[in-house]
């Protein structure tokens, strides 16, 4: 699992993002997509790839560029198949590699996004950082203590515990959001 600090992670992500962008954009733009759609799909592909790294399910048996391109292509084709934006001309979708991106791979939609942002706001910046860094990015307590200038790992652990309790209380006030989150299983 990755336990790297935020600045190292951001540097690596930016390199991956910028290096592989053109190929994916070219594909989507030449297959009935526009620049905004290309950005959206590409960002979701990078997120899906990164989460595989976090879960240690990316084995490195294909090049990163190939992998990202395949995920993006899979997402774009699924989008075209499901959307009303059908081809004006016939388009062969061809064989696409299937990706099991997991039940939580879809970014929560705009309506729920507002609820998520409200709760994050109520949680406060400090709690948001600790929880997202430790639980989503899998950063160690030691790294969080160093990057956020806490005096020790134990201080971070204690704060994390309090933040989780606070989050649970906030979620308890939003049963609709809980239902949405649980429906992703």
């Amino acid at each position: 699992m990755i336990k790297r600090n935020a600045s190292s992670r951001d540097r690596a992500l930016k390199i991956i993002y910028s290096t592989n962008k053109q190929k994916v954009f070219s594909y989507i733009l030449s297959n009935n997509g526009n620049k905004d759609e290309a950005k959206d799909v590409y960002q979701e592909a990078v997120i899906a790839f990164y989460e595989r790294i976090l879960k240690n399910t990316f084995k490195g048996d294909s090049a990163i560029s190939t992998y990202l391109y395949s995920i993006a292509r899979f997402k774009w084709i699924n989008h075209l198949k499901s959307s009303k934006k059908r081809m004006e001309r016939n388009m062969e979708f061809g064989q696409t590699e299937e990706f099991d991106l997991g039940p939580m791979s879809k970014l929560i939609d705009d309506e729920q996004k507002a609820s998520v942002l409200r709760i994050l706001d109520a949680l406060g910046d400090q709690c948001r950082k600790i929880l997202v860094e430790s639980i989503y990015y899998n950063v160690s307590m030691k790294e969080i203590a160093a990057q956020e200038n806490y005096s020790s790992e134990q201080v971070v652990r204690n704060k994390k515990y309090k933040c989780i309790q606070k989050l649970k209380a906030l979620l308890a006030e939003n049963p609709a959001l809980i239902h949405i989150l649980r429906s992703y299983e």
Partner: protein
Amino acid sequence: MIERYLKGDMNQIEKNDFEDRLRHDAKLAEAFEHTKTAHQFIHQAGRLDLKKKLASFDEEIEQEEKRVFPMWVKRAISVAAVLLISIGIYQFFIKESNTKSTGEIYAEYFTGYSGPGVLRNSNQDLPHWKEATKLYYEKKYEEAIPNFEKAKAPPYASSFYIGLSHMLKDTPNFEEAIGSFNVVLESNNDFFHQALWYKGLSLLKLKEKEKASAIFKSVRANKQYKFKEAEEIIKLLKE
């Protein structure tokens, strides 16, 4: 424990045990569901955070691309970058260093111990023990220590939790922790094996590699609390 399960940090035996407990313990099952939902929320928050970060890269890239380079320079840079990056990213993300510091080993293996329950001997100074227990569960370890000291509990019980509190408080004091664990280790009692384990961890934190190794060898030999983890730590300390 719940978090370890959700993060996938348990081995198969631990997972089976935990899942069995979930089936039979309604309170644990409820706590599990709440924690799981909280984690699902944090994953969504993490994705939003990551998406925002990636969107900021787009803006930075667009700024950078405004500088004009000849096409052949761009291609050469791309090819070289892809090669270097593939090697670098593999090293960065996939390859794990085999050499761990004592601090890293501590961070990997330290987990808290559940709070005090009911003591066997009922003739206790209960108010101080109860107060100490309450503070311990509230993670107010600094305040818990004097209450454990005042409680007329068996020395091994008070000392064990005093030792843990010294490890867990905001400004940990591992020398004090070891002092308390040594009291526990003077006799054969309910907390002996746990105290040995935590003494070993405290020594790791103090970078006393050889002393820690000796302690973990005793843990391994006793085949009681955390003896398998002790075996793993001994191997790591040899590297």
